[in-house]
């Protein structure tokens, strides 16, 4: 165990080193399998770790001391418990499948080995983030996943939009990183600890619900919100779809964006101690879930719809961890990783088949050309919409149930989550009927081809996960971390399940009516809803709002500094000093003749002068000093 946990980390970084240093020399096939194989190896190690964690082991092992200064000590320790093991399993397992898929998907890309190097670096960073046993290494992993996300969003750096999207993601994430760092400062300042175990032991020394613990939790939340693309720092995620589709699947759906959920779950003792902050988490999650789902109903870019759907699903997870239903949140994280990775990878096949056109209105008749993609996408859609017996049904219901069980504001968040479930079913089936529908809408004779087996096999495996993941007893596995989840009676379970299935069916029926049966109705409703539709379609104008509030004032300030302050004030001051010196120097430059003899004369004159003054001072001259 003490050896296995670092091995999980070492496998991806080894793959990164090989691909980064020698990737260009290796044949493509080798570079791809080195990239995928290193993650596969990490998955094998993760399974061995898992088998020991199942046996009840929990390890917090220190491997070395990174640096030490007085009583400030930063060790490198790995914290392996059920929670981090679950994360590691999903990251390496789903990550491995996505890497294998990438071997086929990226086969014609000139940056093949670079792609796998970045992907391996990401997996390493993410594993470091979840395995770290103290705040410093957590923040290092946190920043490194931001970096690899930046590199992969801007992977096609010759496209301007990709570069802009990468920059936006990086800036947004940096806001979160600052929050994290300040949270760590506050923790160290008040408790003198950085280690998780010490932190959990000592958190009760702070007054419950006090200003300090609330501030710590809220600052951590800033980091979580930025990384997980929740309101109000969500705008980078849809733009991040500029990256290659496997990147969207791995980083911007299955793993990295759920880091915020992991953070809150990992720090659950802190959030239990700060009810206000926990309530804030829940509100942000519930509102984001609904908000993103409404935007998802109006988009036409297949990857953007999936991106908003990701935001919405992570909103569910935030809601869960905010109201204390940690196991439900982590359960949904796991099922979501399966079905969302599946949806993205299948979408990647469709996008390739339609020659990189991502507009769902230009797609159609997928079933004939890409049968495997079609059926797996349907499974993913059913799973995310919460149809009974699929994975999403169990995990989503658990969250809604936990929220509805509560009283007061949390109950209304549960109602909102229930509404969101209906919206989810609607926008996913709208996407499905429009893009995968029975009719050939483009009216041309393009022939669609199914993707390579190396792409379809991972998708089929993920589809299997999207079906059966709901039956995995995650709650009992996580019991050592979060304690026993609240048991629910069978009647309540069935009653709520019926309700949420009903809501999902309504969403499905509306989508079927508007986008499969009678498309003219959809057009009519769009005009009828005019301004509301425009508001939603433009993502509530939040990008425009941020543009007005931050980007343009920032640019204006920069321009002012550049055009006025820089040339006039700063350059002006420097030039004025120089000019003054020049003017003064004109008066005395005549002294400098360059002739050695005149210098000697001056020197001698000076020496004689000094001598005379000294003699006068000492009284050797006729006229006396001071007389």
């Amino acid at each position, binding site marked *: 165990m003490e050896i296995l946990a670092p091995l999980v980390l070492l496998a991806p970084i080894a793959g990164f080193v090989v691909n980064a240093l020698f990737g260009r020399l290796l044949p493509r096939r080798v570079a791809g399998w080195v990239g995928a194989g290193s993650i596969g190896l990490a998955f094998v190690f993760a399974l061995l770790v898992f088998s020991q964690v199942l046996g009840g082991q929990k390890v917090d092992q220190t491997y070395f001391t990174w640096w030490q200064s007085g009583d400030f000590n930063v060790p490198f320790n790995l914290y392996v418990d059920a929670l981090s093991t679950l994360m590691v399993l999903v990251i390496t397992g789903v990550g491995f499948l996505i890497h294998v898929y990438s071997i086929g998907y990226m086969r014609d890309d000139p940056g093949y080995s670079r792609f796998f190097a970045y992907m391996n670096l990401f997996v390493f960073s993410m594993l470091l983030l979840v395995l770290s046993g103290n705040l410093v290494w957590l923040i290092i992993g946190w920043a490194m996943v931001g970096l690899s996300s930046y590199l992969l969003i801007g992977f096609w750096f010759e496209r301007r939009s990709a570069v802009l999207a990468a920059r936006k993601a990086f800036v947004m994430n940096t806001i979160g990183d600052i929050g994290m760092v300040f949270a760590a400062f506050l923790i160290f300042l008040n408790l003198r600890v950085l280690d998780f175990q010490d932190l959990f032991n000592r958190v009760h020394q702070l007054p419950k619900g006090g200003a300090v613990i609330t501030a710590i939790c809220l600052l951590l939340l800033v980091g979580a919100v930025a990384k997980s693309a929740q309101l109000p720092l969500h705008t980078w995620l849809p733009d991040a779809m500029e990256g290659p589709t496997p990147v969207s699947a791995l980083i911007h759906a299955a793993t990295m964006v759920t880091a915020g959920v992991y953070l809150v779950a990992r720090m659950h003792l802190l959030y239990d101690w700060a009810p206000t902050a926990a309530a804030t988490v829940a509100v942000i999650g519930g509102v984001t879930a609904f908000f993103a789902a409404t935007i998802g109903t109006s988009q036409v870019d297949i990857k953007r719809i999936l991106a908003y759907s990701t935001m919405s699903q992570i909103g569910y997870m935030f809601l869960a961890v905010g109201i204390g239903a940690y196991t439900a949140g982590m359960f949904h994280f796991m099922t979501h990783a399966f079905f969302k990775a599946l949806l993205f990878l299948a979408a990647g096949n469709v996008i390739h088949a339609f020659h990189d056109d991502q507009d769902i209105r230009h797609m159609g008749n997928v079933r004939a050309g890409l049968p495997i993609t079609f059926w797996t996408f349907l499974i993913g859609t059913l799973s995310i919409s919460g149809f009974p017996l699929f994975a999403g049904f169990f995990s989503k219901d658990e969250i809604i149930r936990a929220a509805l069980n509560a009283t007061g504001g949390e109950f209304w968040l549960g109602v909102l989550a229930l509404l969101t479930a209906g919206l989810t079913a609607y926008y996913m089936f709208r996407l499905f009927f429009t893009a995968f529908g029975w009719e050939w809408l483009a009216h041309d004779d393009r022939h669609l081809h199914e993707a390579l087996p190396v792409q379809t096999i991972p998708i089929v495996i993920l589809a299997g996960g999207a079906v059966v993941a709901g039956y995995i007893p995650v709650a009992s596995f996580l019991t050592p971390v979060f304690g026993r989840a609240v048991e629910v009676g069978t009647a309540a379970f069935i009653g709520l399940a019926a309700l949420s299935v009903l809501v999902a069916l309504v969403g499905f029926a509306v989508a079927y009516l508007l986008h499969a049966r009678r498309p003219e109705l959809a057009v009519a409703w769009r005009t009828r809803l005019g301004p509301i539709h425009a508001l939603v379609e433009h993502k509530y104008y939040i990008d425009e709002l941020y543009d007005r509030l931050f980007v343009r004032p920032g640019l204006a300030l920069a321009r002012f500094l550049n055009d006025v302050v820089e040339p006039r004030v700063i350059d002006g001051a420097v030039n004025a000093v120089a000019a003054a010196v020049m003017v003064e120097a004109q008066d005395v430059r005549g002294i*400098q*003749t*360059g*002739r*050695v*003899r005149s210098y*000697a*004369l001056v020197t*001698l004159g000076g020496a004689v002068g000094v001598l005379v003054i000294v003699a006068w001072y000492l009284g050797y001259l006729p006229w006396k000093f001071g007389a």
Partner: protein
Amino acid sequence: MPVPASTFLLLSAVLFTLGAIGFMVRRNPLVVFMCIELMLNAVNLAFAAMSRYLNSLDGVVFAFLVITVAAAEVVVGIAIIVQVYRAGRQMDVDELDLMKE
């Protein structure tokens, strides 16, 4: 009858003055150089005389130091003069005024 210290100091002052005047009125670099040596040795003479007069070795030590520095200075100075001569310049210190700018 021992020679009084003032005699040595007077001789030293005369030599120094000769050196200083020579430094300022002559233009040949070699002669200028010799004048510098004259001034240094005038000082050495004063050091040695006072050392004897005060019955202390400090002055002699200083004299040795000055001799060492003078030797080093001659090496550098002669090298500069030779280089300037080779560069085709006139052997006139007043013409060597490039440092003006």
